[in-house]
């Protein structure tokens, strides 16, 4: 096992990995950008090295600097978290060449799955069902039109590299096709340094269901059941749950087997996720493999009773998988929501500023994975996700109840967040019934407000105005100065009343 591990990430996932290292008695080294000097991860790690300015390209994406820190600090392994360099095969290779261990799958597996075209090929060959589609290194306008016609609208445009919804567009009409393609290419070039985009059949009203898989360096493969991730906005997951309310035992067995087949086919040797689309007839299609730890891994941990990050470190160190497929089972139900500094009533505009104070939920069945604390500044440089709130219950109803209560308790002063929006999702009839697909948020409407809550809000607002006085400042804030976001709130938000 390792004595010392470098964590090449930030935010909640860096904190999560530090905790796993501590559980194994390993020292931790964090690298950070100047924007993260006072982050929880820097304060919690045993060693901290500043590797550059806030821009990710010059810090968290600078593999050379990170490997250099690993060398200087004597770390034997690098955990990339998710995002940043986690699915960068070149980085994984450089780490290995530097005599260090990359805590993730081998570079070849990343390569094989990093490119959507290659991964489709590999999966077709292994007998895993894929979505009909057409792939080219690049398309001319005409070739693209032809391909889309052949497949039939609506079609999806997808970056072959990367994930997280970046570079993905759905096109319903030929007139929007070329513009959408150009944007996908642009986004994907910027995000992944690779502008290849392919076109495939869009499956309408599908479920996004993924399977957690794990392989080791000794040829063992298991899956840890599914996660239902159909509550998405612009292909960004918002709420995840396990088990999926759409799942049947037969489908689970079939998909689990397909997931393990996928892992085996590419010699996968760490934690990974096989994403599927499942149509309304419960026919499933391979989507992609995320060759890293997933943001939503805690729901699997709670339902299956494992520590995936600890297992990642063990397996990376060459140990055999401690999981045996026959002994793995799902117990109870877990749901995760992603707490973000954004305004769902205003096009999900990200919010920035100082976290003045927080009230965090706790109690039975509640898990919080966060790097949030009063006194921290949320900036525009990184993802607006502040924390993941996860509830476990004996059954789905209990999990929803606990999560709803926890969201009611969750209070962040100083930033606008999606906390009430997440609570609204949990109150939605379709969500409560467990009957929803990836179009859920497109048709989402806030559930009605109780009259007494409305009346209290009106009184509270008047009293607030009375106590805090003039309205042209951000009341409660000790800060002066103009915040550009404020004017946005006024100019745009005023009409959303």
């Amino acid at each position: 096992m390792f004595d010392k591990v470098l964590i090449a990430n930030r935010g909640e996932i860096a904190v999560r990995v530090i905790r796993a290292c501590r559980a194994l008695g390993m020292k931790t080294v964090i690298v950070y950008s100047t924007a993260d000097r006072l982050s929880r991860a820097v304060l919690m790690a045993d060693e901290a090295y500043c590797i550059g300015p806030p821009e990710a390209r010059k810090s968290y994406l600078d593999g050379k600097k990170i490997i250099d820190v690993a060398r200087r600090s004597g770390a034997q392994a690098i955990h990339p978290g998710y995002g940043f360099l986690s699915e960068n095969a070149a980085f994984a290779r450089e780490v290995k060449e530097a005599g260090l261990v990359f805590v993730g799958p081998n570079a070849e597996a990343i390569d094989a799955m990093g490119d959507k075209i290659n991964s489709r090929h590999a999966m077709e060959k292994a007998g895993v069902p894929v979505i009909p589609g057409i792939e080219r290194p690049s398309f001319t306008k005409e070739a693209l039109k032809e391909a889309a016609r052949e497949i039939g609208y609506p079609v999806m445009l997808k970056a072959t590299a990367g994930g997280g919804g970046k570079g993905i567009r759905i096109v319903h009409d030929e007139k929007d096709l070329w513009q959408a393609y150009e944007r996908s290419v642009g986004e994907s070039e910027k995000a992944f340094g690779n502008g290849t985009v392919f076109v495939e059949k869009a499956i309408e009203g599908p479920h996004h269901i993924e399977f957690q898989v794990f392989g080791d360096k000794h040829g063992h493969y298991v899956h840890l059941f599914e996660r239902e991730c159909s509550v998405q906005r612009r292909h960004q997951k918002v709420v995840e749950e396990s088990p999926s309310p759409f799942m049947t035992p037969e489908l689970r067995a079939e998909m689990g087997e397909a997931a393990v087949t996928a892992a085996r086919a590419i010699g996968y040797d760490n934690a990974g996720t096989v994403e599927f689309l499942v149509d309304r007839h419960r026919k499933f299609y391979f989507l992609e493999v995320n060759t890293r730890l997933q943001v939503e891994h805690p729901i699997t941990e709670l339902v299956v009773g494992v520590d995936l990050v600890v297992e990642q470190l063990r397996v990376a160190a060459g140990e055999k998988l401690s999981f045996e497929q026959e002994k793995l089972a799902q117990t109870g139900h877990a749901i995760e929501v992603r707490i973000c500094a954004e305004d769902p009533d205003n096009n999900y505009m990200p919010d920035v500023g100082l976290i003045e104070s927080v009230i965090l939920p706790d109690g039975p069945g509640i898990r919080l994975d966060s790097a949030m604390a009063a006194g921290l500044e949320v900036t525009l440089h990184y993802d607006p996700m502040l924390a993941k709130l996860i509830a476990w219950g004996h059954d789905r109803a209990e999990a929803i109840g606990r999560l709803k209560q926890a969201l009611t308790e969750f209070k962040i002063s100083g930033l606008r967040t999606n906390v009430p929006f997440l609570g609204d999702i949990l109150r939605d009839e379709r969500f409560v019934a467990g009957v929803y697909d990836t179009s859920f948020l497109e048709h989402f409407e806030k559930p009605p407000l109780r009259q007494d809550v409305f009346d209290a809000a009106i009184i509270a607002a008047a009293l607030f105005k009375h106590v805090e006085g003039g309205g042209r400042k951000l009341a409660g804030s000790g800060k002066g100065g103009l915040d550009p976001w404020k004017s946005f709130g006024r100019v745009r938000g005023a009409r959303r009343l």
Partner: protein
Amino acid sequence: MKYVVEHEGEEIEIEVHETEDGNYEIVRDGHVLIADFKKIEGSRIYSLVVKNRSFEVLMRQEDDLVDVVSLGRGLRLRVESERERNARLITGAGGSTEGEIVKAVMPGIVVAVNVAEGDVVESQQAICVLEAMKMENEIRSSVTGRVLKVAVAAGQTVNAGDVLVEIGPPDEAV
């Protein structure tokens, strides 16, 4: 003191008087209530107790808009003192439906501009695409109107607060 709280076009008048024991007398539609309203120090959380009903309320104010979160539910309200409201109505300032100045809300790069000067835009129509935080954000018009001015071009870097596009009423001459 009288306040006007507006929600989805509906205006509600609330009268607030301070009582001797530190509470507040609230008058709404002729009904009188006593409210116990206190702040949690160092936060933006208030505790409101009215007729023994307890509400923990998180507040966030931006200009005349107040976001209220209570019992897990969120509500965006416009709150003005009666005086402020009268002043606004007399001067005709604020809350206009006559047009919009669309500003950059964050530093970023203009990826595309979808409108030209003189174009008529619908409410919610995409005006331009701004890349920031590694995401492309479509900036939409919140009014129906005519584009008076396009202040940026694709490829341009903008700072927060920079004007992107100015939109006037649909019938305004260009």
